[in-house]
């Protein structure tokens, strides 16, 4: 077991751990002791484990560097989950933590040799290397998959549960530091409802761990005030991932995704430590100032035993003093400023601490972890001196956390004076405060937060706008304060110097890429993959811009920045997906179908019975006796009003004015390109009431299509209601259908009283139904529409009534065969986005002589020119051969086979015992019944014959019995 007392301090004020309890988890198989409140990284640091993982490309040892969830150096595998940030993830009892990118072990990694060959792995390595010979690609792939990638995914991992929550708020405050908290309080005091999001377990920001500056004054407990304010809701451990138009934010807490609509947004996102580029700049033991302070103050852990502090501001001196107070020996403070620019800070150090003014670090030294640092003066070519120590604290400046401000379309520019990218022009309703906006001292952060809170309230009309003099005064206060960031991004050196820790990109790689011509910042990013790793540019983006500017001879402002895109922080796909909410539509008879052996199929959103075990037998039942199919999925629209026939005339190619009450007509709907959109039957129920059915899949779209024409000018005296789910529908089909139906009603069903293509209101087994006599299957058939609530009852009464007649339920597959035997088309199956009704063998429906209708102009042209391709039936010469739908029809030519058409539908017809189908053919060929052509099946050409009209009952006598 690892001893956690090695680096653990006495209790610290404000620490987050509960020392009363301890538990263990394992890291690489060894037990680690932790307290509740520890993160994986803090517990490992307490136990003196400084190497946590290995890097992506060169497999270099890496350890906790930022302790803030920004850098990629502490990514570990926890159980089945890869890429877990050890510094942010709470340690839990019995957690199984493993390092990443190691084999066989963290200490002895076989791939670390890649570092030795790194000169052969230049930038763009993959683009340049694994190209030829092509025969080697499978081998290359195996090698690359072994080397590349972060962590391991176990495909057997059971899916986790995820959800989403919508939030609405007047003001959203992102960041719970001093600026964010004071902004939230100021806005709430003006009456705004405020939601404050902070990624840490408690709000407080850098005040939770940073040692106060002398001019900060006493720190008010803003977090407690915010928690207590009724207008403020605090969301801890919540990371805001993105900001879109109209202040629409997304945020993640655990497995939950928040979608937030805010009236105004205040970004108080703070800043993170900026790395300095020097030799071995990521050796474990190199930590940022923020990491050193977090370990000390939040977890009571010494970040090292002998510290070398590298700084360019007074904050570094406060960190040195804090380390010293915690029993860490401060060996040296290396400040790049002249002593004259520093505040009164140096006296706080122990007597034997060495102080270097106008010096900086040149290299971290050590095998696997820091053993010391090379220190050299800034401007002299002096040989560096080595100073021993096990901790190098880098505190040379801050990068404002402005990713979300960029996403919010803020104009951000490089401020030469302060050596930082700072917001310049904010969009309406977006505000920035605190360290992200350039505030440095506590008093300024508080003032700017309060100002932003009042501005947000004013934007929402809740308060008067703050006077502009106040805004100007604050800007002056910010500009006059001490500089916190150095303009220096690197120092001279000769060894590995990483700009990007995620993908192991060195400054040399960037120089090479720029020399190769990738000299615009966006190209440089894509080619070198810099800023594309897990840190998403937080560590490297600012430094890359500086290096690019230097190598191209441009200013930082001219170089520009890469576009900031969501998400700001890595997010698992499960969080974005949320619950499995795919809607499924089931008919009222769904349970009956399943209980009676139906094989169900997906049809759009609907579940439909494909068959009840034996489609040919179901076909036979319909042809010889009687069958019943659930067609509740049909779209059903009711049109009311005297304008209905005029409207139907415009959107169908058919004529409707003279359709009598009680009659039914098949209709085809086209768009203005003359392409078939939908088909179905329309019944005239009364002078002013019409009932239209659409295809199952087209119901929603056709309703919206009709609404569009109604609401954009064709809406005189007609109203359309979508009653697709109000009514269920069944088709009772077969020569005995009348006899079955007659058992449920006293109405006269004889052919003279209720002929083909007529509609009647009938009471069936006591239920008021609308019944249409139509014939998709080619047999005497009744389409029965009844209220969905009565569907199950009517269905069972029909089956009861049909028992003596040999009734059988039939599914979609049998229906497809039945309709194909009649050569009835299915829109979308036999037609596509170029099919017009004249070419699709439905010229009889197109009434070109009526007044304006959708498709009239192009259809007139088709009628005049004649179709180029036609949809016709076919049979196969060879028995038993059924070509797949979609196969090509080809004509052999001297130059090779020429594609002249394609198969749209094909089945074996049990009734005719032969293969039948529909296909598109060139019009001259399609016009000759019996003409032969060839279908390409499995590389062979199989002979087929053109067939005109229905294959079964061509005169339609069986429909009219």
């Amino acid at each position: 077991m690892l001893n956690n007392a090695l680096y653990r301090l006495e209790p610290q004020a404000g620490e987050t751990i509960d020392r009363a309890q301890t538990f263990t988890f394992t890291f690489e198989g060894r037990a680690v002791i932790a307290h509740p409140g520890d993160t994986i990284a803090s517990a490992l640091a307490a136990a003196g484990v400084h190497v946590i993982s290995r890097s992506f490309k060169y497999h270099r040892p890496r350890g906790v560097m930022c302790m803030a969830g920004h850098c990629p150096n502490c990514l570990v595998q926890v159980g089945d989950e890869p890429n877990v940030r050890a510094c942010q993830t709470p340690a839990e009892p019995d957690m199984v933590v493993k390092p990443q990118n190691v084999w066989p072990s963290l200490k002895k990694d076989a791939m670390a040799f890649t570092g030795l060959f790194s000169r052969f792995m230049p930038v763009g390595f993959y683009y340049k290397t694994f190209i030829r010979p092509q025969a080697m690609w499978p081998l290359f792939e195996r090698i690359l998959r072994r080397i590349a990638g972060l962590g391991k995914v176990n495909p057997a991992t059971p899916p986790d549960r995820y959800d989403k929550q919508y939030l609405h708020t007047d003001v959203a405050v992102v960041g719970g530091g001093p600026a964010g908290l004071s902004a939230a309080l100021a806005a709430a005091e003006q009456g705004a409802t405020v939601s404050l999001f902070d990624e840490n377990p408690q709000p407080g920001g850098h005040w939770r761990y940073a040692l106060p500056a002398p001019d900060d004054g006493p720190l008010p407990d803003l977090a407690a005030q915010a928690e207590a304010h009724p207008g403020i809701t605090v969301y801890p451990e919540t990371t805001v991932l993105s900001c879109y138009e109209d202040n629409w934010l997304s945020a993640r807490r655990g497995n939950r995704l928040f979608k937030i609509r805010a009236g105004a947004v205040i970004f108080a996102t703070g800043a993170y430590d900026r790395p300095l580029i020097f030799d071995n700049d990521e050796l474990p033991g190199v930590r940022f100032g923020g990491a050193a302070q977090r370990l000390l103050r939040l977890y009571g852990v010494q970040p090292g035993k002998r510290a070398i502090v590298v700084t360019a501001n007074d904050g570094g001196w406060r960190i040195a003093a804090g380390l010293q107070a915690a029993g860490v020996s401060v060996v040296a403070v290396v400040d790049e400023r002249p002593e004259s620019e520093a505040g009164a800070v140096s006296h706080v150090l122990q007597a034997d601490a060495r102080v270097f003014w106008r010096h900086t670090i040149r290299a971290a030294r050590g095998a696997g972890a820091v053993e010391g640092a090379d220190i050299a003066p800034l401007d002299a070519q002096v040989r560096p001196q080595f100073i021993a120590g096990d901790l190098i604290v880098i505190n040379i400046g801050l990068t404002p956390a402005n990713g979300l401000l960029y996403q919010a379309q803020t104009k951000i520019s490089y401020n030469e004076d302060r050596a930082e990218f700072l917001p310049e022009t904010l969009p309406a309703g977006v505000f920035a405060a605190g360290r992200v906006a350039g505030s440095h001292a506590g008093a300024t952060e508080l003032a700017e937060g309060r100002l932003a809170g009042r501005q947000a309230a004013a934007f929402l009309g809740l308060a008067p706008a703050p006077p502009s003099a106040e805004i100007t005064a604050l800007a002056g206060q910010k500009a006059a304060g001490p500089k916190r960031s150095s303009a220096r991004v690197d120092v001279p050196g000769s060894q590995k110097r990483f700009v990007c820790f995620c993908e192991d990109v060195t400054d040399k790689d960037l120089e090479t890429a720029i020399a190769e011509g990738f000299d615009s910042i966006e190209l440089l990013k894509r080619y070198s993959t810099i800023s594309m790793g897990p840190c998403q540019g937080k560590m490297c983006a600012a430094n890359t811009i500086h290096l690019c500017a230097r190598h191209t001879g441009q200013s930082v402002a001219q170089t520009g920045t890469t576009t900031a895109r969501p998400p700001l922080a890595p997010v698992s796909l499960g969080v974005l997906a949320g619950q499995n909410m795919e809607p499924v539509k089931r008919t009222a008879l769904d349970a009956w179908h399943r209980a009676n052996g139906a094989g169900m199929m997906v049809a759009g959103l609907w579940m439909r019975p494909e068959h009840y075990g034996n489609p040919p037998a179901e076909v036979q039942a319909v042809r010889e006796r009687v069958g019943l199919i659930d067609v509740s999925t049909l779209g059903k629209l009711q049109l009311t009003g005297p304008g209905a026939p005029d409207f139907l005339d415009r959107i169908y190619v058919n004529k409707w004015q003279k359709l009598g009450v009680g009659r039914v007509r098949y209709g085809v709907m086209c768009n203005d390109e003359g392409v078939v959109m939908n088909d179905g039957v329309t019944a005239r129920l009364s002078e002013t009431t019409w009932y239209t059915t659409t295809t199952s899949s087209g119901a929603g779209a056709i309703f919206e299509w009709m609404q569009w024409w109604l609401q954009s000018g064709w809406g005189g005296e007609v109203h359309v209601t979508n009653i697709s789910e109000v009514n269920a529908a069944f088709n009772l089909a077969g020569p005995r259908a009348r006899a079955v139906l007659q058992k449920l009603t006293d109405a006269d069903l004889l052919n003279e009283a209720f002929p083909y293509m007529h509609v009647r209101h009938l009471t069936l087994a006591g239920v008021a139904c609308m019944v249409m006599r139509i014939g998709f299957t080619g047999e005497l058939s009744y389409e029965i529409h009844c209220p969905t609530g009565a569907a199950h009852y009517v269905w069972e009464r029909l089956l009861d009534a049909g028992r003596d007649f040999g009734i059988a339920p039939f599914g979609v597959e049998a229906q497809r065969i039945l309709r194909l035997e009649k050569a009835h088309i299915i829109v979308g199956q036999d037609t596509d986005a170029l099919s017009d009704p004249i070419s699709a063998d439905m010229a009889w429906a197109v009434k070109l002589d009526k007044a304006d209708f959708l498709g009239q102009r192009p259809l007139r042209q088709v009628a005049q020119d004649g179709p180029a391709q036609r949809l016709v039936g076919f049979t196969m010469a060879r028995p038993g051969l059924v070509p797949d739908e979609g196969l090509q029809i080809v004509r052999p030519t001297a130059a090779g086979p020429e594609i002249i058409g394609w198969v749209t539908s094909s089945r074996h017809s049990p009734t005719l015992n032969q293969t039948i189908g529909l296909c598109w053919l060139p019009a001259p060929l399609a016009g000759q019944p019996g003409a032969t052509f060839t279908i390409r099946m499995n590389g062979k050409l199989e002979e087929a014959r053109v067939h005109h009209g229905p294959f079964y009952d061509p005169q339609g006598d069986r429909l009219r019995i």
Partner: protein
Amino acid sequence: MILLNCPNCGPRNVQEFRFGGEHNPRPAAPLAVDNAEWTDYLFLKANKLGVQKEWWYHRAGCRLWFLAERHTQSNQVLKTYCWTARPNREGETCVE
């Protein structure tokens, strides 16, 4: 995600709506126009950079088709209104 102001229901997430394309009026007499004008109506979109007049449908709401004037670069919606004079819930007509 932008907020879209349905003339009938007020501001809603754009997710509730279906985009209906550019406002592209159909020639009043299709048989009377020449091929160029007909082709223009059917196939040629302006694809404007700037304020575009376009159709939206409140699919998950009141089922109103309405017009919006939206800047295609900033995505800012300047105004929304009905094609025909119809009263909304407050009895106000919502035409331009």
